[in-house]
């Protein structure tokens, strides 16, 4: 293996995905694990991770993999043509703690591969710290994060490309780590929340022959949209800036740093609140006009009620449908599960009032009409 090759680390959440097959919508918490096993669930995460690494072994035999011990990784790679170095044994608790301990031990690796779902993605990225490279092998029930390959085989193909043809790989520094409150999901409410961003390898769309031309980079387009928005801000109006990278571009355009996961607010060119609570926002608004800048959650297309509950129905009602400014890249809109946006403010009448069509800012002087529905 060449000296400059990346070192891969691997951690598996062996119970990931257990809940799904038996209708439990996730496997967070030991009680749920026991219930899933009671209902006859068979753990499949390890087998899926093995499928991914079998692909790697096939295409790049002998690749070095630092693996968490036993069922937490190394045990699933036995017999594959890989140079597996198992970490020292750790005390296995059967909980998320195992993932966190193993991920911490893999901090020295260039890329930490994990087998699991959104909960595992959260645990791994939280343990590694911000900006670290990860790749998820999809094994969980919930997989809303942008860190997952589309299949175990695709994950293996990505890894082998990193070894044999790294020019086929690009890096996404802003992959969203999302997770859903499982208790809420079991009661029929989807509430994904943004927990951070990770660096993720992606297959690079290489330049097309003869008439493709370079595509507009989403970040540049959003920066243009944000600048246009800032240029057009009205004096005295409170601009409430929702969480996410898309809306974060507004604060960046003002020369400030967005809080990303929380809600910020600006007025008259100044940041007047960071990571604000619902009460703080209401108080700031006072009697002044309010406008609300929102992003769109990936794949599901939620505008309101997912990770931005600090923006209350009364604040939304004050802004009115005209006062909602939505920002998203054209790529994000094109890859939604349905060509729709959703609102779930907690106030059914307000949700109804917000339904219809809305303009999403995708770049400077560029918008896409999107249908909005009550979830």
């Amino acid at each position, binding site marked *: 293996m060449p000296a400059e090759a990346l070192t891969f680390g691997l951690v598996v959440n062996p119970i990931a995905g257990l809940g799904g097959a038996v209708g439990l919508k996730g496997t967070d918490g030991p009680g749920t694990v026991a219930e899933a096993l009671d209902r006859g669930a068979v753990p499949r995460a390890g087998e899926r991770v093995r499928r991914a690494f079998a692909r790697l072994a096939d*295409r790049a035999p002998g690749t070095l993999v630092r693996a968490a011990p036993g069922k937490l990784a190394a045990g699933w790679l036995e017999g594959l043509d890989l140079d597996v170095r198992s970490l020292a044994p750790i005390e296995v608790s059967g909980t998320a703690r195992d993932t966190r301990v193993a991920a911490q031990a893999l901090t020295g690796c260039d890329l930490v591969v994990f087998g699991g779902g959104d909960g595992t993605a959260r645990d791994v990225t939280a343990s590694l710290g911000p900006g670290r490279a990860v790749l998820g092998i999809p094994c969980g029930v919930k997989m809303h994060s942008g860190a997952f390959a589309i299949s175990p085989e695709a994950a293996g193909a990505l890894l082998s490309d990193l070894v044999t043809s790294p020019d086929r790989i690009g890096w996404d520094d802003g992959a969203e780590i999302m997770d859903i409150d499982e208790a809420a999901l079991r009661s029929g409410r989807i509430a994904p929340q943004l927990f951070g961003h990770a660096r993720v390898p992606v297959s690079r769309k290489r330049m097309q022959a003869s*008439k493709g031309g370079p595509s507009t980079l989403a970040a540049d387009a959003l920066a243009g949209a944000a600048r246009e928005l800032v240029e057009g801000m009205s004096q005295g109006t409170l601009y409430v800036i929702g969480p996410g990278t898309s809306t974060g571009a507004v604060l960046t355009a003002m020369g400030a740093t967005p809080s990303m996961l929380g809600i910020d607010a600006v007025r008259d060119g100044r940041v007047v609140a960071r990571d604000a609570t619902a009460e703080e926002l209401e108080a700031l608004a006072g009697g002044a006009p309010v406008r609300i800048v929102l992003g769109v959650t990936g794949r599901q297309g939620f505008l309101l009620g997912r990770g931005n509950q600090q923006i209350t129905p009364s604040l939304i009602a004050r802004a009115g449908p005209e006062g909602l400014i939505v920002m998203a890249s054209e790529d994000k*809109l094109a890859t939604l599960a349905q060509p729709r946006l959703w609102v779930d403010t907690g106030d059914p009448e307000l949700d109804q009032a917000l339904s219809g069509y809305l303009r999403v800012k995708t770049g400077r002087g*560029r*918008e896409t*009409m999107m*249908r909005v529905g009550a979830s």
Partner: protein
Amino acid sequence: MTRPPEFHAAKWNEPVVMELGRPGGRGQHFPAPEDEIRSAVGIDLIPGEMARTDRPDLPEITEFEAQRHYLHLSQMTLGMMGVSLFGTCTMKYNSKTAEFATLRPELAAVHPYQHPDTLQGVLQIIHDMDGMLRSLSGMDQFIFQAGGGANAAYTMACVARAYWADKGMLGQRTEMVTSVQAHPCNPATAAAAGFKVVNLPLEENGYPSLDALRAAVSGNTALIMINNPDDMGIYNPEIKEWVRIAKEAGALCFYDHANFNGVMGKLSARELGFDACMFMLHKTFGAPKAGGGPAVGAFGCSDELAAYLPTPVVVKAGDRYALDEDRPKSMGKIREYWGNVPQVVKAYAWTRAMGADGIELGADISVVSNNYMDKRLAEIPGLAISNPDVSARRMEMTRWSLGPIAEETGIGTVDFANRMADYGIDPWWMSHEPWIVAEPFTPEPGELWSKEDIDLWIDVVAKICEEARSDPEMVKSAPHNQAIAQVKGDAFEDPAKWAMTWRAWKRKQEAADQGKRGAA
């Protein structure tokens, strides 16, 4: 399954022409003029201020060596004569008869600054082509100034700007509404002309909904720009209602006829309510495209908009043809003169040769061929059609996806395109941005290719699917039988690694050398 062709491109690893030859090498050696000639014509034919003082930087090689070099280069291409089902581009054979017509001195040796009395033949062809396109669209006037489809879209944006400025409403009519699947030149040219762009997404039926259009248009809409069918191959049956809604809001309506091939002779843009449309003579009308020669975007509009057209407009007055420059409301010029005239002549030849019935038959063949392709492609495991829930048959092309096989093998559309070249098949067209389906490809068989050619193309795709499963590394590293192996995309993103001219290349090299010396 037909046997895939066994093919290997020639590979000539020779320097670029500027690095060939030797000092003093030359194509022809001309004798110095005799004294008699010299005294008759003088010696200072080139005025002193126009004569160059340095010698041009030309390769010093013999004519024979130059011919050999360019033969070698041509051997390293696929020659644009293969099976090239390059969707959205409507690839056609470019007849040699038409080519020879344009080489006749009546065309090749004339100049647009000549007096129109000496250009009557060429002007007649332009005028008659205008007439034939009017029959196909219902418009009142065509011009050929635009140098391509995007240039014709830009013509529309500029005509709309002039129209609204003339009405004193340009400050209010600021928006252009289009579909996310329209060709990117529609939003781009509207933006270049100063309009804000409003995109409509594709909804459940595979085209934008009337509700979205209703929500988008208003008293601020200057124009809508739309193609139909779009690149998914789905014909929007609500198009008449579309135009009605847009016109009710006061907007101008432009039909981008880039995908005209499946509906040639079947519909009229004007009857659908459009104010203007555009045809690409270098695609639909059999004139060469891309490397084959310059393009023409034929732009046509209603009498109401004709006042704003770029000038000159070729008109017939009595039995004479003339260039009308006196159009005070004209938006100006899109390009110089009256267009790439040899291309108009070639399109004229194609249109006359096909005839009205032939053009309609061509549309039928292209739609039938594509539906035959859809059926056979659907039988190949690993491929998926776009909008699988839409049961209506596709028109002259279909957007397909390699999503399933990419998920299974990690081999995607770029890899397939590279590998196709190993079988002597021109790489396919993938998709415009944004990619709505995963790992897209978009074949369009048109009316040219035989069933044997189409079967061969499909068989090669099926073969590469097998290879993706059995030997993915080989597919990933394709092409293997080509003159040049896989081109690393990175090079295109680094201007230091490429240049469009030898002079630019030398300048970049010198700058790089200086940088190195500076660093040292």
